[in-house]
């Protein structure tokens, strides 16, 4: 199911460079609608990359990353609306909050040996506790949420021109890719995948599993929280129902699992595929309304998910590299 990491080579570098050029030029080529789409696609690619660190590499299958997402969104937004702190700074505070939450979860999970699907359930529980708490807490907006002002204030990460948001999210994606790549080729990365594969065997081989889990979850959470800040600044509205919803969490996971968990580019590929296909479906001359197209897209994604898990266990990227080496779970 998880694919083996591969270190980049010259061909990859050229491809990457071309992609980079295209991506930087995009705002000039797209109209407002597609630019918004690009920003959204970028955000989901970014969040999938963040989730991948914890779920794809360390095997910490968290269903509660929205908690970190919310931590970032609410921290930076409240700092801005209440104390006029620029979200450029606030996002680091948000990252800190996310990391803190992650550390608490990781320490408790290790202490009480909460692993595997029980860990996943525990993360769900965290979100299910957080949402009603935020809903009833009026000083942080309660269930009505918080609105951000619609103005142009670059110093406060507010732009009227979408292109700037685009560049910010592209930058964030680049950072996430870089962080993933650096971790993957470092001792932390090796240790993380060892834990994912077999925690006990890893430990007797010298892997400090508790520490590695804390680190991977904290890094993943901090980055996710920054994504939360970006979300708030772009959509200008946060609310517990949305920010702690099941949908965002699913999107983080689905993109990664289909694209290739435990790879650097997998989450981006999977997530972008989802975003692009959704748009393509709407453009098809079938006369589907956007809502119906979205439903059909999710239907297709369910099928893709099942098919990938059965026949392409390493995800799309795993397939391309280890097609010969990895036998499918199901013999067709």
């Amino acid at each position, binding site marked *: *199911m*998880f*694919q*083996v*990491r591969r270190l980049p080579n010259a061909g990859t570098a050229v491809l990457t460079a071309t992609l980079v050029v295209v991506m930087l030029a995009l705002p000039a080529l797209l109209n407002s609608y597609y630019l918004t789409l690009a920003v959204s696609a970028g955000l989901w690619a970014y969040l999938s990359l963040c989730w991948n660190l914890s779920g794809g590499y360390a095997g910490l299958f968290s269903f509660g990353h929205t908690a970190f997402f919310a931590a970032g969104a609410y921290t930076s937004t409240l700092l801005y609306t209440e104390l006029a702190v620029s979200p450029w700074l606030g996002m680091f505070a948000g990252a800190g909050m996310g990391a803190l939450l992650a550390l608490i979860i990781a320490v408790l999970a290790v202490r009480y040996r909460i692993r595997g699907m029980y860990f996943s359930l525990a993360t769900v529980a965290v979100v299910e506790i957080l949402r009603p708490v935020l809903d009833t807490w009026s000083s942080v907006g309660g269930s009505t949420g918080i609105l951000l002002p619609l103005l142009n204030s670059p110093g406060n990460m507010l732009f009227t021109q979408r292109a700037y948001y685009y560049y910010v999210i592209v930058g964030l994606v680049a950072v996430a890719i870089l962080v993933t790549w650096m971790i993957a*080729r*470092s*001792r932390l*990365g*090796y*240790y993380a*995948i*060892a834990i994912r*594969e*077999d925690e*006990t*065997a*890893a*430990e*007797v*081989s*010298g*892997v*400090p*599993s*508790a520490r590695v889990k804390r680190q991977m979850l904290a890094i993943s959470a901090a980055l996710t929280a920054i994504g939360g800040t970006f979300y708030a600044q772009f959509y200008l509205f946060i609310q517990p129902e949305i920010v702690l919803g099941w949908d965002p969490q699913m999107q983080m996971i689905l993109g990664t699992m289909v694209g290739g968990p435990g790879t650097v580019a997998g989450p981006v590929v999977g997530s972008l595929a989802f975003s692009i296909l959704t748009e393509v479906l709407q453009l098809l001359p079938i006369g589907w309304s956007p809502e119906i197209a979205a439903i059909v897209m999710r239907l297709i994604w369910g099928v893709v998910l099942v098919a990938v898990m059965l026949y392409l266990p390493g995800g799309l990227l795993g397939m391309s590299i*280890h097609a010969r*080496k*990895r036998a499918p779970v199901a013999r067709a």
Partner: protein
Amino acid sequence: MTALRIEDLRKRFKGVEALRGVSFEVADGEVVGIVGANGAGKTTLFNTLSGIIRPDTGSIRLHGQEISGLAPHMICKLGIGRAFQITRPFLNLTCLENVTIGALNREPRAARARERAMTVLAQVGLGDKAEMLGRDLSVSWRKRLELARALASGPKVLLLDEVLAGLNELEINEMVRLLPTLTNDMTVLIIEHVIQAVLQLCSRAVFMQAGAVLVGGAPSEVMNDPMVIDSYLGAEREC
């Protein structure tokens, strides 16, 4: 120099006493065979030595330092390496990655660790299989991988749990020939049922039954002890 001093180790699992006051010493560089029927407590002993299980009472001293109750990774850092009875390779990782993880115990820089891992892989004869995934290896190759990963972690004391189990005669001879070249001056504890190997590899042997060490001494002495023969009665003996 005493590499390992085990004193009065006891472990109870829900009414079953798996270890009942195990005590013995292993000197530096010794290769000690641990024999006994299934259920005698041999693997439990290894589990306490590598830190997977915490003993109820008793002490384990590695070169004078008390290690019972320490976390497994600390024990590995201090110098105990472990190969499991039923191999536990990292299935979705390549052989190289498997062994690199072991090598990282001594060499924190990933690139250097990979190099070291490559060397160890070549030593155990898996050099050409470096890019094969753990799950694609046969049993005998998995045994070698397990060995390589443990060796790469730079142990002073190596715990081998039935490293010959599941191998055919040819593979057993191969392994018996290979092991001494790999372990050199390392201290080794071998749990084994293949008597021939115990006789060939070990300088000393201990016999365990029902959680206690009953006989100890030169391998040929131990294997000819009436109590030991009794417990193996009915099982095939290789001389």
